[in-house]
């Protein structure tokens, strides 16, 4: 399978990339790790006339800490984040989630920015970033701005990115010390997108849930935040009845497609179970 011909650009700065993307318009696509775009190009489902490869922009790489936030450059690969003690010691759920993204070869090339900016509802990091309350730093022809992950996703492959705009970094607030976390992902095989997955970040106080956030992957056109389920958990010791009602409240907002991973009813059913398992495991870990 050979992609259609295109012109290759390799800008050395964000400003140059933004200028190229703005000038070339709809005929151009930014190229990050390429592990979503290149397969689509080989199948001729995507035929961009220009590719703007972001690999030459050093400013988009690396992990740092700014106060109570971990900043991950958009072109940081998933493997690099998996090896970042700075990020994983502060936000350990990143490690367990990224270890379940695709497979090792894909993680060596796949980037954090590409995973969150592509708007693919099957990707694991968008729901995680919503759960963590992360912000996305964007830069475009009109300048730089910040959009919360929770406000970024509008539909399948449809995001708050304006034409010519790229995501430059993800800013993740460090959860409180002693928090519990879990990412529960049901998949048909290693490397597959989730049949259903749930992310949980919570804190416990005196045996009861003090704060809780729950995110859902691949259970609708966009990643979801299960606010009602999270509020049902708060103030409880996560007894069985609470777990069941939280799972049911989360399932009530799921609207998965029926595909090779199962019909919608099945995916909602297992989606609720992923929420219950993630809540339980997160609470067991919390101190």
């Amino acid at each position, binding site marked *: *399978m*050979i*992609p*259609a*011909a*295109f*012109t*290759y650009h390799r800008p050395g700065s964000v400003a140059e990339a933004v200028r190229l993307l703005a000038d070339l318009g709809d005929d151009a696509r930014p190229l990050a790790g*390429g*592990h979503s775009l*290149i*397969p689509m*190009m*080989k*199948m001729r489902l995507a*035929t961009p*006339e220009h*590719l703007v*490869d972001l*690999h030459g922009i050093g400013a988009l790489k690396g992990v740092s800490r700014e106060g109570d936030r971990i900043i991950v450059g958009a072109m940081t690969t998933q*493997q690099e984040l998996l090896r970042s003690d700075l990020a994983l010691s502060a936000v350990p759920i990143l490690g367990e989630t990224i*270890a379940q993204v*695709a*497979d*090792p*070869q*894909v993680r*060596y*090339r796949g980037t954090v920015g590409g995973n969150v900016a592509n708007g693919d509802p099957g990707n694991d990091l968008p729901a995680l970033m919503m759960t963590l309350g992360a912000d996305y730093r964007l830069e475009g022809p009109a300048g730089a701005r910040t959009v919360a992950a929770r406000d970024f996703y509008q539909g399948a492959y449809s995001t708050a990115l304006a034409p010519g705009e790229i995501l430059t970094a993800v800013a993740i607030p460090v959860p409180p010390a002693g928090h519990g976390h879990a990412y529960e992902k049901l998949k048909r095989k*290693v*490397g597959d997108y989730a049949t259903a997955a749930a992310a949980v970040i919570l804190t416990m106080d005196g045996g009861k849930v003090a704060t809780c956030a729950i995110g859902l992957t691949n259970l609708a056109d966009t990643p979801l935040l299960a606010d009602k389920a999270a509020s049902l958990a708060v103030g409880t010791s996560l007894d069985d009845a609470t777990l069941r009602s939280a799972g049911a409240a989360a399932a009530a907002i799921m609207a998965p497609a029926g595909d090779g991973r199962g019909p919608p009813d099945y995916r909602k059913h297992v989606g609720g179970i992923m929420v219950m398992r993630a809540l339980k495991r997160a609470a067991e870990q919390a101190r």
Partner: protein
Amino acid sequence: MPSQAKKTQIGMMVNGAQVDGLVEPRLLLVHLIRENLGLTGTHIGCETTHCGACTVDCDGMSVKSCTIFAIQADGSEITTIEGMANPDGTLSALQEGFRMMHGLQCGFCTPGMIMRAHRLLKENPNPDDAEIRHGISGNLCRCTGYQNIVKAIRYAAAKINGTEFQEAAE
């Protein structure tokens, strides 16, 4: 659509030798390796980034060469299965492991498996079976059921580390 895409001069080290040439931007790295360089040990399986048969080592990373444009590898150091034997031509520890432990049947996945295992052992010289299985989860084998591939990688790790190989998993 550009009717005649402009060719670009690129160069890279492949198995220790510098190679240079003019490429169209859409040329995939695996096609450069197989067709331009004639190194057909790197296989094309699924062409959709699933099977790992095209895995090569690129700048210290295992990558699926069907999902990178050759132009992106400009200036890189690449190792393919042809670069895996010892300098004197004898089998490397991994190659020997696959031979001794019957880590292959049809052999189609083997170059990708060995290239992936090569990087896995560089990063984790003494993996347990679970780490080996997680480490090769991007490589599909339809013959062996993986048991003997895992053993082959453990054999190679023991040989490289100078420790005794235990055929049964610990």
